[in-house]
């Protein structure tokens, strides 16, 4: 009585789509897919029909016509006579800029806070606990508005720097903190500056090569070379040498009062600072929790085993705990980066010209092409988020456990 239960091979009947558990799930999935497509088609057709009835159409022609408005922060050349598409590009670059800056600072802040929260020092760990709980439990929009309002209300306006006995003066004679933003000196690239930059790039490559050599020497012979000060020397000395030999081709342009505002140097606008800081401290609090979770996920046995091998606490952290913790930290970190990018659309609250403010705000409003603009916006955020996700997943694969 052992051969009875074997099903017949290769005989597929249509009724099995419903009755056989092996195929039934496919049937349901197929039906669900059909329903989804039908719903989408209905929405699309309905939209087009209603637009046609109102005499409107979906057209992206407005992207080519002059935008007509000015933007206060633009990393590429832009004037009010450029097209709406150009204005959207300015917005995209501004979005990417603030997202990138905030991702970097939030990561640094988050890792420091996460590690410090596990510190044995009572004061440090409690301070970090307070930071995390306060910042992640208040909406990021409130933080953006608070930092911006503080900046405009507390810092002096440029006119306070004017006159023989000004109410405010520049910090170190080079930095001006005003309620319109921070003005800092900025390098001017003279002739020959290319060589200085090239020297610096080569120095970075040399420094990396040196560190690799040191690691290889350690593994091969057990000889430990110093790493910190030679790296610094390789990075700085050749560049300094090139700078002076070529007769100082790079000079600094200092900000100075000119008319109503400061001229010269680099202006970092108050909206950018407010948005950048707020996104950093807010998301940093979440990242701190991810880092803490990642470190605590590594069993104490690992630390104890490493200690018993004679590794010092710093090396235990760097060589044993962190590499393993990264595997736990990276996936939630990806979603924090995505959050930063999407939360940057709150920029409009402080007048930062991101993509939501240019394409989704002024362009939408002035052309009235709401559906087109919102579709483009969705496409942009989707593309950026998926790109970040893809890049981080590649990194995640590179640090994940290599099973042999």
């Amino acid at each position, binding site marked *: 009585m052992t051969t009875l239960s074997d099903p017949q091979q290769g005989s597929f009947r249509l009724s099995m789509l419903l009755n056989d558990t092996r195929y039934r799930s496919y049937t349901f999935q197929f039906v669900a897919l059909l329903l989804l497509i039908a719903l989408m088609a209905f*929405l699309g057709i*309905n*939209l087009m029909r*209603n*637009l046609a*009835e*109102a*005499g*409107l159409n979906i057209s992206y022609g407005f992207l080519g016509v002059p935008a*007509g*408005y*000015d*933007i*206060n922060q633009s990393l590429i050349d832009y*004037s*009010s*006579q450029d097209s709406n598409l150009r204005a959207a590009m300015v917005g995209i670059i501004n979005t990417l800029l603030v997202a990138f800056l905030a991702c970097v600072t939030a990561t640094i802040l988050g890792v420091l806070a996460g590690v410090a929260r596990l510190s044995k020092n009572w004061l440090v760990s409690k301070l970090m606990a307070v930071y995390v709980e306060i910042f992640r439990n208040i909406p990021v929009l409130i933080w953006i508005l608070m930092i911006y*309002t503080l900046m*405009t*209300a507390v810092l*002096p*306006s440029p*006119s*306070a720097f004017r006159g023989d006995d000004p109410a405010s003066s520049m910090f170190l004679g080079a930095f001006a903190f005003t*309620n*319109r933003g921070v003005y800092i000196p900025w390098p001017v690239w003279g002739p020959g500056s290319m060589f200085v930059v090239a020297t610096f790039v080569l120095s970075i490559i040399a420094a990396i090569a040196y560190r690799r050599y040191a690691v290889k020497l350690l593994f091969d012979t057990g000889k430990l070379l110093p790493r910190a000060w030679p790296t610094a020397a390789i990075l700085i000395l050749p560049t300094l040498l090139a700078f002076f030999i070529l007769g100082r081709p790079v000079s600094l342009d200092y900000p100075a009062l*000119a*008319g*109503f*505002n400061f*001229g010269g140097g680099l202006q970092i606008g*108050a909206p950018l600072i407010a948005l950048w800081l707020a996104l950093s401290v807010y998301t940093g609090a979440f990242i701190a929790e991810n880092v803490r979770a990642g470190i605590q996920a590594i069993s104490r046995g690992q630390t104890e085993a490493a200690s018993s091998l004679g590794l010092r606490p710093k090396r235990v952290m760097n060589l044993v705990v962190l590499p393993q913790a990264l595997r736990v930290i990276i996936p939630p970190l990806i979603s924090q980066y995505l959050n930063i990018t*999407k939360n940057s*659309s*709150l920029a*409009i*609250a402080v*007048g930062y*010209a991101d993509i*939501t*403010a240019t394409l*989704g*705000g*002024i362009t*939408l*409003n*002035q*052309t*009235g092409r*709401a*559906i087109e603009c*919102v*579709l483009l*916006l*969705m496409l942009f*955020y989707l593309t950026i988020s998926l790109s970040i996700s893809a890049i981080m997943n590649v990194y995640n694969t590179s640090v994940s456990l290599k099973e042999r």
Partner: protein
Amino acid sequence: MNKSVFFGALTVAGVLAGASVAATLDDVKARGNLNCGVATGLAGFAAPNSNGEWEGFDVAVCRAVAAAIFNDPQAVEFIPTTGKTRFTALASGEIDFLARNTTWTFSRDVDLKFDFVGVNYYDGQGFMVPKALGVSSAKELDGATVCIQTGTTTELNLADYFRNNNISYEPVPVETNAEGQQQYLAGACDTYTTDASGLAATRATFENPGDHVILPEIISKEPLGPLVRHGDNDWGDLTRWVLNALIAAEELGVTSANVEEMASNATNPEIARLLGTEGTLGEMLGLEADWAKNAIAAEGNYGEIFAKNIGEETPIGLSRGLNAQWTDGGLLYAPPVR
């Protein structure tokens, strides 16, 4: 949820909600009330009072239209719209009538397929600066930082004006008038620009209004008016003539106080035609004969509406200026009622 995704969903939902475009009057009558798009809250123009009832200069126009149709100024559903959502709401049929200080421009009239039914407020864009800045003309504002309400026509006028005069500026976009006022007073911008009426109203609320001057240049024309969807001319005619009736009533001396008396014993034939005791004007619009009488009785004639909501006796404190009757040197001029 991402803000833009939310707006997208709203947009699609709004367009889906839109039914047929034609015969708006039939739809409104069947529904029993008028769906009127107004600002989300702009003192004097459209804002709910302490009892939650909408009132203001634009709101009064909505009530007049509702009174002309239903003889009931309360038969209005007010739908607050932002600068971003107003056109989508009108195009989709979510609202029948948009009265939200919207500037009449070519592209809005032609490209966006709307019909402006008239102008209920003539405005123009100006600049306000602190006296201490020592500026007496907008042409001296080279390099200045300018606070500007984003998403408005003033933003485009500003860019045009500075480009035309070959001077530069740095815009500081703000969302609302309150935010602009705060930035301006904190010195985050050298000058604040918006419609001159708005500047006057804003300056009036300052602690020391005398420390600020409004520069003489008016750099744009801002005719603000109500609008309807393009394509339903009957509905456009109806709303246009309700507005004209309010303006004509002021010219003819018909007020909410004397409208009943005027209607019963009108000697002036134009008043008699307007109030429906003579002729069949109401029938031509598809309304009762006393449509205009009800519209005027609702909130008063144009002058009464102006005085009650934004006139010199109110905190907004605007003088009639360009918005006086043509007989008083203003631009208000209703076509003949015949």
